[in-house]
């Protein structure tokens, strides 16, 4: 066969029935392959999955959902416990801070302010005895004084001294007519700055035979100023008790 006739046979093929069948089959193959590829790409991996596989996948998902729900419930429980615990802790902390403030007022470790009176005792003859001041303090305490400080002149110079009055406060006679309040030597005039009910405090000092009369016997005078705010600013260091321990 010459090359020319080969070319002619290739270009102008004989069309037998079998050739047509082959062509149709291959056309079908191409068509089906493309359709299958497209359907696989179009709908994601699940579209081509079989029914059993889908059921299996659904089952797995349901199991996983159950596990995750249980986990969510457990975590929510933990969260509730934690937030509840925080609330309780912060409430306890607030309460403890409040008590520390209140006790600090009693122990003289924090400043106090509120309505009250300022009582000034003059002593021109420098003859006032410590027990007069102690009486005055007891009278004030009995009238509901909640925070008290005593002020007086320092022995030398004009500087004034302030002493916070607490449970252990003592009044002792000092040299040259002064009075030592807790190791601080004071000279007249003495001032009590008292936080409490002003009316009650005033009337407690003024009762017959009370502080005012007492001081007058020594030639001094008592001046009482009521105020809606007095400030007790003198502080005292908290000392650890050497022997006493809290009973559990």
């Amino acid at each position, binding site marked *: 066969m010459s090359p020319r006739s080969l070319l002619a046979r290739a270009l102008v093929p004989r069309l*037998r029935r*079998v050739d047509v069948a082959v062509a149709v*089959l*291959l056309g*079908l193959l*191409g*068509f089906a*392959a493309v359709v299958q590829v497209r*359907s696989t790409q179009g709908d994601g991996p699940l579209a*081509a999955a079989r029914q059993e596989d889908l059921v299996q996948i659904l089952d797995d998902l349901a199991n996983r959902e159950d596990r995750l729900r249980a986990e969510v419930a457990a975590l929510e429980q933990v969260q509730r416990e934690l937030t509840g615990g925080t609330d309780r802790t912060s409430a306890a902390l607030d309460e403890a801070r409040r008590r520390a403030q209140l006790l600090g007022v009693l122990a003289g470790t924090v400043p106090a302010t509120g309505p009250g009176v300022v009582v000034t005792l003059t002593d021109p003859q420098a003859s006032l005895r410590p027990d007069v001041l102690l009486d005055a303090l007891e009278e004030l305490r009995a009238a509901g004084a909640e925070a008290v400080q005593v002020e007086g002149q320092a022995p030398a110079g004009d500087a004034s001294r302030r002493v916070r009055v607490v449970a252990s406060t003592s009044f002792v006679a000092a040299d040259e007519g002064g009075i030592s309040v807790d190791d601080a030597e004071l000279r007249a005039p003495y001032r009590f700055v008292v936080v409490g009910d002003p009316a009650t405090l005033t009337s407690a000092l003024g009762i017959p035979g009370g502080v005012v009369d007492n001081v007058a016997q020594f030639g001094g005078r008592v001046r009482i100023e009521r105020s809606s705010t007095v400030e007790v600013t003198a502080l005292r260091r908290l000392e650890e008790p050497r022997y006493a321990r809290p009973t559990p």
Partner: protein
Amino acid sequence: MIPALALVVGVVLGLVLEPTVPAALQPYLPIAVVAALDAVFGAVRAQLEGIFDDKVFVVSFVSNVLVAGLVVFLGDQLGVGGQLSTGVVVVLGIRIFSNAAAIRRRVFSA
């Protein structure tokens, strides 16, 4: 020449028409395509070895597709459709590989 043209025409038709596969045919179409591919590779190999016969090709193509579809159908009825179609794909894949190897030896002499 004509078979290659027909293949191209089929691909173009598939791309242009964008038909959706009917739900009833969905499990069988991929298996049928693989079976047909096996028949085509066998035909190419026979062509290269000079023993190609159109009738044999047509019969083997059709029977390949039908048997593969039948096996998968039976598997579905028996509840092992997934495994059987995997098995069919594996067997046909092995045949395609061996045919491809024979073609490679013919074409590249290696």
